[in-house]
């Protein structure tokens, strides 16, 4: 369970999160929506424990993600908005993940395969040399292989072709049971079948929160 209470985050004088409170429970799939700059990414990063809040707190299964980051992150899979220019090759990246997060390399390969990404072909290629869509497929494969109870996606489909999007939603549908799925998106129609709750943010506040 994720519990966000009165969370406030400022950057300089800019208020990115303004007293946000919400709870996410097991078996909820949430579409997190809102205009550019509304604070969606900031909220997600706070859940991951990257920011020290100005006020309020986040608790993941009762734990503070800043202070207990290792325990908290064991139960979270995350795909960021922009795939980072990681210089490791795919083999090294998988090694990093398999050792640090105890994820099976073969399982990553399996999901990559399902996403139509040939990992074996690109094993010794730097991650940042993959195409934008291939990068996202790789990160998605990793996130599914990690098999966490909380899955957080910050607009992961931006660079995916329509076929890959379908593959992605199909895989997600198979994997969402008993989990929290938090999905930032600008296209609700795409994730309609997947989500059962939608939250709108604007100017750092939650402006609507409805169950479908």
């Amino acid at each position, binding site marked *: 369970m994720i519990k966000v209470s009165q969370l406030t985050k400022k950057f300089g004088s800019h208020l990115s999160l303004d007293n946000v409170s919400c709870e996410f429970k097991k078996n909820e799939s949430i579409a997190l929506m809102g205009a550019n700059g509304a604070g969606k990414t900031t909220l997600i*990063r706070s859940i*991951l*424990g*990257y*920011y*020290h809040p100005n006020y309020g707190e986040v608790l993941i299964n009762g734990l503070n993600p800043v202070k207990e*980051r*290792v*325990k908290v*992150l*064991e139960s*979270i899979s*995350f795909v*960021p908005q*922009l*795939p*980072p*220019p*990681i*210089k*490791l090759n795919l083999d*090294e990246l998988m*090694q*990093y*993940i398999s*050792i*640090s*997060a105890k994820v099976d390399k073969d399982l990553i390969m399996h999901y990559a395969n399902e996403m139509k990404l040939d990992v074996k072909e690109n094993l010794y290629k730097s991650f940042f040399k993959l195409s934008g869509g291939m990068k996202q497929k790789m*990160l998605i494969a990793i996130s599914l292989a990690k098999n966490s109870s909380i899955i957080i996606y910050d607009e992961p489909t931006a660079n995916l072709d329509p076929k890959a999007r379908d593959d992605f939603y199909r895989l997600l549908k198979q994997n969402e049971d008993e989990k929290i799925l938090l999905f930032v998106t600008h296209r609700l129609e795409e994730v309609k079948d997947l989500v059962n709750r939608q939250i709108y943010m604007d100017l750092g506040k939650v402006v609507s929160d409805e169950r479908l």
Partner: protein
Amino acid sequence: MKNLILIAYLDLKESIRAKWFVVYSLVFGGLIALFFIAGVTESQVMGFSGLSRLLLMYIQITIVILPIFILITTVRSISGDRDNHILEYMLSFPISLKQYYWGKVIGRFITVYIPVVFAMIIAIVYGAFKGAIIPWSIFFLYTGLLFALSSAFLGIAFFVSSFVKSSEVALGIAFFIWIFLLAFIDIALISLMMQQRFNEELIILIAMLNPMEIFRVAAISLFDPELTVMGPVAFYILDSMSQSVFILVSIGYPLTIGLVFAFLGFKIFEKKDLV
């Protein structure tokens, strides 16, 4: 522990593939090759010849270029990864900040230290092959000094990297630190000395707080145990400690500086937002 090794190992692998590492290794390897080609081992200057002479020249050039190399390549490590969102992804896995940071430090240390020592080993092996006498004590002293110098500047670089905002500023700071320690302190102290406002002991003490300076003095101390080339300064140094203590200080002190700065960098890294 296994995460620490993992991060150090992956950072090392990544660095070794990087272009700067190739240039870096070529510079130090090339330096040694150049000395042999130029016949440094055959020449005799100030009474030292052979490999000792070569190592002394090598260390004197290394004192100047190693710090700037380390600073420039390392000063952006953490801040660069933060800027381009690598941290955002890599730290979404269950790795403690301690393991991540110190893993990076260790990986980077190995990367910068190995080529400079390796170049010396090549010199020793090649020299031995040509029948030169191997100056072991100098070799071990320099291995230790390079270890200390690398750690001092690596620590400073990680410290800067932990708070600096943009790459340009990071490079600017790196260059400033280098020039400052290399020349400005000396120039300032010489002018103070000439004005005779402060007593010499104080000025020498300040000069010796500079790790680059202590390194310079230590590098010649085996050739010249009385430190005669330094003039009256030697009197103060050897008056306050014996030669062996001085050598220990010259290794221990920069090492401590490196660790202290690296630790401060870690504290800042931990306190600041990660992305």
